[in-house]
């Protein structure tokens, strides 16, 4: 029996039960064998190296990595939360508009409906659209003002909603509204561009917020005019 078996016996690994038992028995009776095993144990117990210290730069980098990973996670959580809000907002606005426009076109049909009722129906349809557009712009403005929101994601989401509203406005005959929405799209598309410098993005956001404010004021005025008439 060689020292390889004794080494495995020391490690309590790599021997079957019979081999372990045979070594155990021999160690009890064979003095020379027991001496060999003791020397092996002493040597193996000394075979340890002190830990070499990790460079300070590495330790600092490891701490930074944890910080950055945690921050990235927080950021993506916020994005996910925003995504969900924006999705439900989009669904709600679109649903309201579809119902409004659907109702409007139903009432628009050439039936025996009196002219006064037709006018009311068209007003309902256009008003619903305007309300939707106002909410859309107000939401866009608030997202643009939220410094923590992801610019590209906000712009992409708003382009999607802008296009839905534009199509609904065209379908519903509200061509002025559709034009306003179309005019907004190039700015939103520019905002969704990845390679904007922070200064360019901020300037564009300010321009868009200004234009949205103008449109919102006009829409509010039109709305109050139609209510008063």
């Amino acid at each position, binding site marked *: 029996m060689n020292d390889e078996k004794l080494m495995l016996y020391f490690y309590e*690994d*790599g021997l079957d039960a019979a081999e372990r038992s045979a070594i155990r028995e021999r160690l009890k009776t064979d003095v020379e064998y027991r001496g060999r095993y003791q020397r092996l144990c002493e040597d193996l117990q000394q075979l340890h190296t002190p830990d*070499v210290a990790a460079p300070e730069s*590495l330790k600092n980098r*490891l701490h930074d990595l944890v910080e950055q*990973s945690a921050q990235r996670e927080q950021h993506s959580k916020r994005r996910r939360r925003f995504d969900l809000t924006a999705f439900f907002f989009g669904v709600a606005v679109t649903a309201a508009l579809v119902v409004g426009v659907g109702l409007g076109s139903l009432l628009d049909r050439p039936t025996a409906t009196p002219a006064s009722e037709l006018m009311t129906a068209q007003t309902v349809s256009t008003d619903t659209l305007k309300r939707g557009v106002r909410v859309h712009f107000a939401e866009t403005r608030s997202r643009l003002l939220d410094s923590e929101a992801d610019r590209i994601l906000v712009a992409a989401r708003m382009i999607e909603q802008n296009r839905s509203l534009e199509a609904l406005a065209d379908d519903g005959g509200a061509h002025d509204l559709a034009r306003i929405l179309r005019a907004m799209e190039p700015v939103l598309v520019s905002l969704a561009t990845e390679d904007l410098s922070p200064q360019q993005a901020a300037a564009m956001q300010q321009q868009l917020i200004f234009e949205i404010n103008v449109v919102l004021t006009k829409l509010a005025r039109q709305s109050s005019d139609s209510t008063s008439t």
Partner: protein
Amino acid sequence: MVALLRTRPSQADFHRAISERSDRWYAACLRITRNPDLAADAVQDALLSAWAKRDQFQQSSKLDTWIHRIAVNAALQLLRRQKPGVFEPYESEVASADPGPAESLDAAELDDSLSAALQGLSDIERLCFVLKHLEQWRIREIADELECSEGTVKQAVFRGVRKLRGRMDDLRRDSA
């Protein structure tokens, strides 16, 4: 029951583990790779991997031990990538026993008699010895990791131990 044992370690837990145990992770990776840059990369990879998988961490084990194990695996992977033939059983014990110039430099940097003695082992001997003796892996685990037979691992550990004991005898004689 398993779900109860799973407690996601916090950011503070990771910072604490780094402060207290990164020396050990680095030292283990350095013994395996013999290259300070690779060892640092392995520790860094391991930390990122542990952070990404921290939902899988089980409370029954310690966070630093868990990262240590991931770091050792990362070091082995990096070594395999850098030296594809490193885990293959050797043809000649003598031919593989001479450290190259780069390895001699690493040995000087390590500045420790056993660490220096480890440089005299072939790659497979050193890896098997480090994983068995210092990292306390099972022979089966080492064989699986290095994709070789258990017999090869046993022989490599035995040869490594024999060479190191020879070196220890030399040191004892020198000091006597």
